């Protein structure tokens, strides 16, 4: 059933538009403004054209090299997170009980990491991974593994990725679980009559029925892992060296640490455009696939 056309509905969305415009549009315009200007201090700005953007997008410059290094690191991090969290999330969702007291308990335990402030998540893993006082760090060292996330780049990466898996896989699990719950029992009975095995049921029934929620899961996990700041900042501070300096950590360093407004603004805009583009492409391709499947 088509929705009726009514432009007076704008009155209902007006408060949202006003509030979000105040909170988002003004800052975005500030950023755009800075990105095309340079300053000698004393609040004296002059037109700088696209110089910041040219510097940023040229890997041979200092700023550009730094930007692209951080960009590849962030992409690798997002990729790793998605590769681990999505399959693991699906697998755990399939094991969740469908009824009984276990349901509520499992759901509450699963949701717990999602409600912990991000710097506390960082703190938990910072403590947990330390060789002197942490169970994980001490345990690995007792096994003879020379693990030290503060000095060894590989260990730092492993810790940050493990932390993100710990923190966010539950989101994927809960989404998939909601998708699985919506499958009518009749589907399973039909599959049983056909003598379908677990794998066939998964491929033919469960996975297609989870497509909508998996789209949401991939989108949310991509956005949030690509924007990650607090957790790795608390655990590694971007180190050792620059090994875990992701885009937003670098951005905060340039903007609030060095107060390089022009560079930071240009970087902000490119950073934001990357997320928007990736999300838009992913959303467009998956929804087109869905509408074709529906026909």
């Amino acid at each position, binding site marked *: *059933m*088509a*929705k*009726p*056309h*009514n432009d*007076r509905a704008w009155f*209902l969305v007006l408060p*949202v538009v006003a509030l*979000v415009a*105040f*909170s*988002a549009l*003004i*800052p*975005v315009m*500030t*950023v755009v403004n800075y990105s095309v200007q340079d300053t000698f201090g004393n609040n004296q700005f002059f037109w700088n054209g696209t110089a910041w953007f040219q510097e940023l997008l040229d890997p041979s410059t200092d700023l550009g090299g730094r930007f692209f290094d951080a960009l590849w690191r962030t992409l690798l991090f997002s990729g790793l997170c998605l590769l681990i969290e999505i399959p693991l999330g699906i697998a755990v969702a*399939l*094991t969740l009980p*469908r*009824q009984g007291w276990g349901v509520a308990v499992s*759901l*509450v335990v*699963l*949701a717990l990491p*999602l*409600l*912990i*402030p991000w*710097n*506390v998540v960082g*703190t938990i893993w910072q*403590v*947990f991974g330390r060789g*002197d*006082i942490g*169970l994980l760090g001490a345990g690995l060292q007792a096994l003879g593994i020379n693990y030290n996330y503060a000095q060894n780049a590989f260990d730092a990466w492993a810790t940050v990725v493990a932390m993100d898996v710990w923190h966010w896989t539950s989101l994927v699990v*809960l989404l998939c679980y*909601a*998708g699985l*719950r919506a499958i009518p*029992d009749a589907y399973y009975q039909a599959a049983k009559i056909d003598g379908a095995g*677990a794998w066939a049921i*998964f491929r033919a029934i*469960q996975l297609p029925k989870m497509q909508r929620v998996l789209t*949401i899961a991939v989108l949310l996990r991509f956005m949030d892992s690509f*924007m990650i*700041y*607090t957790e790795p900042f608390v655990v590694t501070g971007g180190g050792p060296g620059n090994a875990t300096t992701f*885009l*937003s950590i670098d*951005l*905060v360093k340039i*903007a*609030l640490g060095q107060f390089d*407004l022009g560079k930071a603004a240009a970087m*902000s805009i490119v*950073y934001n455009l990357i997320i*928007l583009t990736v999300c838009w492409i992913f959303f467009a391709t998956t929804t087109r696939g869905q509408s074709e499947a529906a026909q």
Partner: protein
Amino acid sequence: MSTTVAAPAALPAAQAPARTGALRAMAPRLVLGLYVLFLLVPIYWLVNMSFKTNLEIASGMTLWPQQPTMENYRRIFTDRSWYSGYINSLKFVGLNMAISLSVALPAAYAFSRYRFLGDKHLFFWLLSNRMAPPAVFALPFFQLYSAVGLFDTPWAVALAHCVFNIPLAVWILEGFMSGVPREIDEMAAIDGWSFPAFFVRVFMPLVAGGIGVAAFFCFMFSWVELLLARTLTTVDAKPIVATMTRTVSAAGMDWGLLAAAGVLTIIPGAIVIWFVRNHIARGFALGRV
């Protein structure tokens, strides 16, 4: 009947020997158990540490506190600079929930019931704010809220968090509202309800679950955020997450105190989850299953 499909992944393959069949039946519980263990062990370690003295923490590994102490918690509850952090956090989280929900409710209704000029573009623009890294906004927010005199108040943080919470609330509520048949609106109009009265007294109770879930998400994302909350406050409105970043004293890291403060930040979240546990699965799917 439903018990036979309780764990679809556990369906044994045809003619599998009984032994592997039993193993397969156990496998899902094993996976779930290991995953829950993986989730809980780091949290346990924090709780464990919060009951230890710094001397015990520094002197070696113990799996549980040898001399349990409440000293770390006592310090937090008696020191104003600590406990005011929790109050400040709850203030801006509450404000943010109230603002986000009150503006998102009518907007979500508009998106779920009508087509209007530019509706799709508007929806994507709203969501695009959810995709903007807080790091991008930190500096401009600082300048904006300083300019309007809201810097270092709960209002600054509450309004700043609206950037990502309002779009999310609209998205969730729109999903739940679309599940309510439109005939109800039409019948209410025929019965002579005015729109505001219909909306508050008929429609809102119908989407109460969705409102609860949206409130939960606003709480969640406002409670866990650090970067903006820290940038927009200094002294008077400093949230607990910012207080926690400064536990380094002359004597080194105060791990016990840090752990106790961390444990106390987990508790409000745990309570909130318990209240919405029946809606949580559908809620995380944003009402779209």
